[in-house]
């Protein structure tokens, strides 16, 4: 079942001689439980695609649907509610609030959406527990390592009943071991039914996705087919 859909989405910045076509008629469908990676060079439109998919920015033309509902038909308040309830974001620089503990950072979106503070805190600690950070719940961001901070950010992105997880270079600031750990967590969140989109220029991270979409000059130029399964690599005829 499709949870996130982009239909012929284009985005133009500026006008006249300074006009920049960041996205050109991009279509993308992401199902529940699927993780899609978007790869492309700098300036290919990866981050623009993510901000439009997450309703942080509006397309110049085309349509974005989340859980079957078109964003263009929603009021500003409805879109804000959808962002709070259904969409989780993970950024390269974590974007945690320095004055809040890990648990408070994670429970904040629930509290903003009307969940009583105590219930939100319980839910936040449960999300941290699932990512192996239960013991660090009362620590502030500057008391955590980079890998731990990103895990808190992932917990914040999936807490509650989120349906879409959007991540922009989520391991760009981490070493390869922590980067891999972050991708394992994102993949695991998707396997529980979330539709995920990760944009990255790093092939080793993109390869954790079920499908890799290649973006170039604002267009989708190609995508991978479903891998045949790891056992094919170990077939006796394989020439290594």
């Amino acid at each position: 079942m499709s949870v996130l859909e982009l239909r012929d989405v284009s985005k133009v910045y500026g006008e006249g001689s300074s006009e920049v076509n960041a996205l050109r008629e991009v279509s993308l469908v992401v199902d529940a439980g699927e993780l899609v990676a978007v790869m492309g060079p700098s300036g290919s439109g990866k981050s623009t695609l993510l901000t439009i998919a997450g309703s942080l920015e509006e397309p110049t033309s085309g349509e974005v649907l989340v859980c079957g509902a078109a964003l263009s038909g929603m009021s500003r308040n409805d879109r804000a509610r959808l962002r709070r309830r259904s969409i989780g974001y993970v950024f390269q620089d974590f974007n945690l609030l320095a004055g809040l503990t890990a648990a408070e950072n994670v429970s904040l979106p629930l509290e903003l959406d009307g969940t009583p503070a105590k219930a939100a805190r319980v839910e936040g600690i449960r999300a941290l527990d699932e990512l192996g950070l239960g013991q660090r719940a009362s620590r502030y961001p500057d008391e955590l390592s980079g890998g731990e901070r990103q895990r808190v950010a992932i917990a914040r992105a999936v807490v509650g009943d989120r349906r879409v997880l959007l991540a922009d270079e989520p391991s760009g600031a981490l070493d390869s071991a922590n980067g891999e750990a972050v991708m394992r967590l994102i993949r695991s969140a998707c396997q529980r039914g979330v539709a995920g989109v990760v944009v990255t220029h790093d092939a080793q991270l993109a390869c954790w996705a079920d499908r890799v979409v290649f973006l170039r000059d604002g267009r989708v130029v190609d995508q991978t087919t479903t891998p045949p399964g790891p056992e094919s690599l170990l077939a006796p005829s394989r020439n290594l």
Partner: protein
Amino acid sequence: MSVRHALLALLSEGPKYGLQLRQEFEARTGEVWPLNVGQVYTTLQRLERDDLVASDETGDGGPQNRFRITAEGERELATWLRTPPDLSSPPRDELVMKILIALRVPGVDVHEVVQAHRRYLVELMQEWTRLKEYAADRDLGFALVVDAELFRLDSVIRWLDAAEGRIKRAASDPPMDAAAALPKLPRRVGVPR
């Protein structure tokens, strides 16, 4: 992959039979490199001929023979471990050749050629990543082999990315004639090993 030295390494732990060596070789390399038993015995015979291993019993070198490493074999293994493989000459890489040729063939979109190879490499990396996801946590040797393959494929993708960027820039800003602009440079690199 040097089967010869891998067998010496296994024998450095103590005397072993041929079939045992095959099983341990495959287990230590995460079963990524299958080894047939004929290859094991042929290699052992050559190692024995070169006085790097000795068999405990007289026989035909078959399954009943147990092999042990000699002092000469231990010296050979120590030297091999510390000798870097020869990477000083660029290999005659088929992919590099294809991209260079694609630039010269009329009517060929080199970006399309680059993308076809990039997609194939990413699909291969996805398969290796699935293997890592399911199995590598339980087997250090296997995890190291999978990481090596992922880094190798990743480096090829990085080269394709860099090549595509360079080709794009060159199309809008053609480079000077290199022969006229630069003094003659050595085309071979190398450091004493």
